[in-house]
């Protein structure tokens, strides 16, 4: 046979054809289909091999995903720290009441959407209207940037497809607003998502719901179908409902994105921000249900006064949801929640749950306005409020905080995985905030990968700074 193959240098080189990476299987979603509500506790080695084969992923990866999520592993440690939402309807401290007063009327929202869609450049028109909304840039800041600039970035990043994610802050105790809105104002949320899709050019929307809210899931699916049947949803925008596989890391967005992709729900490192590379590396806007529900109202009125639905957590006498605006002070909300008990029994307020900040009485006259709060060194991770009762012992309270962090952390990075454990050990050994305890918490806050690890030590450190190891309220 002749040896007549051409040599490497003999032929001029045209550009090679491009290759598209193959998509990895969405392991968690496939697991849900295969397991059908069962846990993996009783699977034999043979079962696992079969499971992996039918999913089409290596057994090691399937086992890793299954071990991470509560739905598959059957562990109950996560999510045990979440108080359930009281049945009482939301109250209002803002005049006029906004979301809680308006019915779930989406007619005007969808007609505005239609009008916008017929303009020459709908995305640009909408972007212009968004950036013109008064107060939006002040009140809706995430990761240091306002809503319209984040969405503009998602729209400007070149990509074949883009995503809109609506989350309910699951994993953030006391964030009941998303849940309530999806139950009572689903149309507004869906309309808001359509606006977001128009603004960034997204073709797919996902509403994330905690998997325990079965009725909510089916109701949302019905609402989406109805909207689709009524012909108000844009044709090129699909909305699906995603029941989570278990508690995402304290509501950390990037962990949620991983879970939606069907991968292990660990936090991702930033940058890139989700707006640049979110789901499957595509531009993604992730907002809470409340943002979407309020969006049609903002577009209509052209202003945003910082209204929020905030959760008042037990042990307040009157827990529940309350709607406020940026002029309402902490004291007003707290007195409303404390009811007849009054404020005298409260030593401090936790603003923003377990990742937020402690607000001591001298700061209670601060209005619930993001900028003003930050100036007062109060970092609200979300807008929920809970009281620290007078006389609460430090070690009980700190232990509860640390146990929560331990049950929620994803474990990807070392400080957040072992930090709470080491802190608990230090607490058990001495029962008081030693120098070492502060050092541990400071290290975790400084070196953790995502916002969860950076934020949960803050309230504990604030307590120590204020009262050292004494019970709450000790001067």
């Amino acid at each position, binding site marked *: *046979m002749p040896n007549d193959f051409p040599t490497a240098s003999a032929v001029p080189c045209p550009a090679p054809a491009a290759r598209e990476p*193959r998509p990895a299987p969405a392991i968690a979603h496939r697991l849900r289909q295969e397991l059908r509500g069962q846990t993996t506790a009783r699977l034999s080695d043979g079962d696992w091999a079969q499971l992996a084969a039918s999913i089409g992923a290596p*057994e*090691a990866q399937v086992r890793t995903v299954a*071990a991470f999520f509560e739905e598959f592993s059957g562990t109950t440690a996560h999510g045990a720290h979440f108080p359930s939402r009281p049945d009482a309807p939301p109250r209002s401290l803002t005049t006029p009441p906004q979301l809680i007063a308006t019915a779930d009327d989406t007619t005007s929202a969808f007609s505005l959407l239609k009008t916008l869609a017929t303009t020459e450049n709908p995305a640009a028109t909408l972007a212009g209207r968004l950036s013109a909304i008064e107060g939006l840039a002040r009140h809706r800041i995430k990761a240091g940037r306002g809503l319209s600039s984040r969405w503009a970035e998602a729209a400007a990043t070149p990509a074949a497809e883009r995503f809109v994610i609506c989350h309910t802050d699951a994993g953030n105790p006391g964030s009941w607003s998303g849940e309530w809105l999806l139950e009572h104002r689903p149309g507004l949320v869906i309309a808001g998502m359509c606006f977001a899709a128009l603004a960034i050019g997204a073709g797919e929307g996902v509403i994330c719901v905690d998997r325990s809210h079965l009725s909510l899931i089916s109701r949302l699916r019905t609402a989406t179908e109805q909207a689709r049947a009524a012909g108000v949803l844009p044709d090129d925008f699909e909305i699906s409902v995603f029941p989570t596989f278990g508690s995402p890391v304290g509501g950390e967005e990037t962990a949620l994105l991983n879970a939606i992709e069907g991968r*292990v729900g660990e936090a991702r490192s930033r940058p890139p921000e989700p707006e640049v590379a979110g789901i499957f590396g595509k531009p993604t806007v992730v907002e809470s249900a409340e943002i979407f529900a309020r969006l049609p109202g903002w577009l209509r009125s052209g202003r945003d006064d910082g209204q929020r639905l905030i959760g008042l957590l037990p042990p307040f006498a009157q827990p529940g949801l309350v709607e406020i605006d940026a002029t309402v002070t902490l004291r007003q909300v707290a007195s409303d929640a404390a009811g007849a008990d009054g404020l005298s029994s409260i030593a401090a307020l936790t603003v923003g749950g377990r990742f937020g900040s402690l607000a001591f009485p001298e700061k209670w006259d601060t209005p619930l306005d993001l900028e003003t709060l930050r100036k007062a060194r109060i970092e609200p991770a979300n807008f929920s409020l809970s009281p620290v009762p007078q006389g609460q012992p430090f070690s009980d309270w700190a232990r509860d905080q640390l146990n929560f962090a331990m049950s929620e952390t994803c474990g990807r990075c*070392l400080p957040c995985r*072992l930090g709470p454990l080491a802190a608990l050990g230090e607490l058990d050994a001495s029962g008081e905030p030693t120098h070492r305890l502060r050092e*541990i918490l400071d*290290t975790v806050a400084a070196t953790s990968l995502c916002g969860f690890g950076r934020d949960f030590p803050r309230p504990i450190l604030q307590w120590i700074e204020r009262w050292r190891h004494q019970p709450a309220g000790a001067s």
Partner: protein
Amino acid sequence: MKTAHINSRPVEIRPGETILAAAQRIGIDLPAPCRTPGPEPLESCRLCVVQVNGQPFPVAACGTMLEAGMDVQTHHVAVERWRTSLLRIVAESAARTDHAPSRVRDGVWSELLSHYGVTPPAPQRNDLSKPERDTSHSWLRFDPAACISCGACLTTCETVAHQHVWEIAGRGPRRRIQPVGGRPLALTPCTACGACIDPCPTGALVERHGHHPAEEPRRSVESVCGLCPVGCGLRIESADGEVRRVSGLVHSPTNPGGLLCKRGKFAHVAHQNWDRITQPMLRRGAGFCKVSWDEALDFIAKRLSALVHAHGPAAFGAIAGAGLSTESAYLLQKFTRSVIGSPHIDSVAHTDPALDPVCRAAFPGTASFADLDRATCIVVLGADLDESHPVLAARVRQAVADGAALIVVHPRRIALSKSADCHHSDLTPPPPDDSSDDPLCRLLLTHRSGTVCLVGSDIATPEHLSGWMSRLNGLGTSALPGAGLIFLGGVGNHQGLLLSGALADSLPGHVPVSDSQARARIEDLWGRCLPVESGLPLTGMLVGARDGRLRGLWLAGYEPDRVTADATLAGLDLLVVHDLIYQNASRHAHVLLPAASLHEQTGTAINAERRVQLLRAAVPPPDEARPDWAVLTVLARRLGVEWPYLDPAEIFAELALLAPDRLAGITHRRLDEQPEGIQWPCPGGNA
């Protein structure tokens, strides 16, 4: 030029460079225990955090790109305090959980502990409850109690080796890295490539054999692996004249990510075994006695002269094995052809006569391994890559993940068939039919260009190869980027053996013996007459030895199986075995000569993509062991032929003269300057 500052020193920005890489470039040492050779940084240990101006939080240097205008502080007092505290957190947690390391072995982690003055966790009373050390595996040991669950092993296993041996069991503080299913490591699909050992920062994963603490001063040499035709880049660490650890070169063109296979990673363990031949030995009755080189060579020279005198030069034959450098193989055939005058020289590159036309036809191939990274379609033809060339199997899997189509043609379903779009068990290609619905035909049609074909030695006949070649050529396969043919020989330095002329029917430069012009040119250069006819092939020589046609045989690194050895080698007048280890052929040897392994000698090997690579001696050969070329030079002098070679570079220069179309322009010195080797045709070689 855009610049940033690290510790107030201006640093030039390079695209895609992380802060960690830039800091290391200017000589700043940052702790980065969880760094892996894979593309994605783990960012899990958080010890490499640095402060960047304008950033509210410290950032991980391993995962953050250095950008213009950044002002980075790597060893600010606060950062150092966090690092110390973090190490203490891990040490303190051991008392509270089974999921933090309670034993500290060596490795980067223990260096960090002592550098930052952190006391390692004291042995706990409940130490017995800690997971036990996994000693089930033949090549690795895993100690879960020394593991910090960083995931470096898992990521390396998945992204570099493309295997799935490790899993993460549990979330949060219960996160634990373990072999899949919690099984003993030996019962996992582990291929023992050892890729997970090098990135492990705590020494939880170590070599089972010959593991030594990292603290001892080591000499490090970059070389290549000559055990198969992939030619992986190696870093060989040695101390006290012994190889301590072999690891892959991360930026090597042949094994990206520094992946090695079991053989490349652990060959030195066998080389340092007790049964290594380290002294020349002469048969005395039923056993051997150690002698000096003088005695051994005198004996060989005397026996050889007598043998040639009595039976003629054609009664002697020599076989070159797989462990030979190109230079040694060249000298062995020169010795046989010109000093003795026998035509009988062959090598293991020629084991199967039926296959020989296949490899001659496919030799030397047109594509490079790097073409696999660009090909849109890969055809694996008659090769079980996971068995024969595991490093290439990983590269093919990476290509498949990146979107290349994969066609496996093999009589049985092989491991790679799982990743293939199409497994074709018939070695005959399907007839060209553009309208066919057969998935194979569709694939071949879609990928008219951009197909790389890997031809292995499991292909049955030359007809199969030519059938596939015309099928692929018909579809436009040619030497475009991301297209072409690679012939995978079964043995190391396959192309080197072919080019050196250690073949029964071809002379140096891969010209046939029958080519009288070429023969005359070689005779001129060597100043000796050459046999005019082709010699016996390898199997023919063994038959000849059995039948008494051959009276003397020289086996250089060639090892027949035991039955063949007993049946053919017992009745010879002279059997010289020049090898590393006492094996089957050695039992019948009259003289045993200690050889140098590929880690112990300088020379070249040529891999399957025509890449000439320099083997560098990392350690001296043990005791009296010598490389083949040195022994042959001395022996030739005893037989009255003076060879002028002082080192392998001069031998290679002579071979390059005889193979100008392939080796011109390549010298040892040039290879020494180009660590990635030179693919022939060599640029500027013919100028």
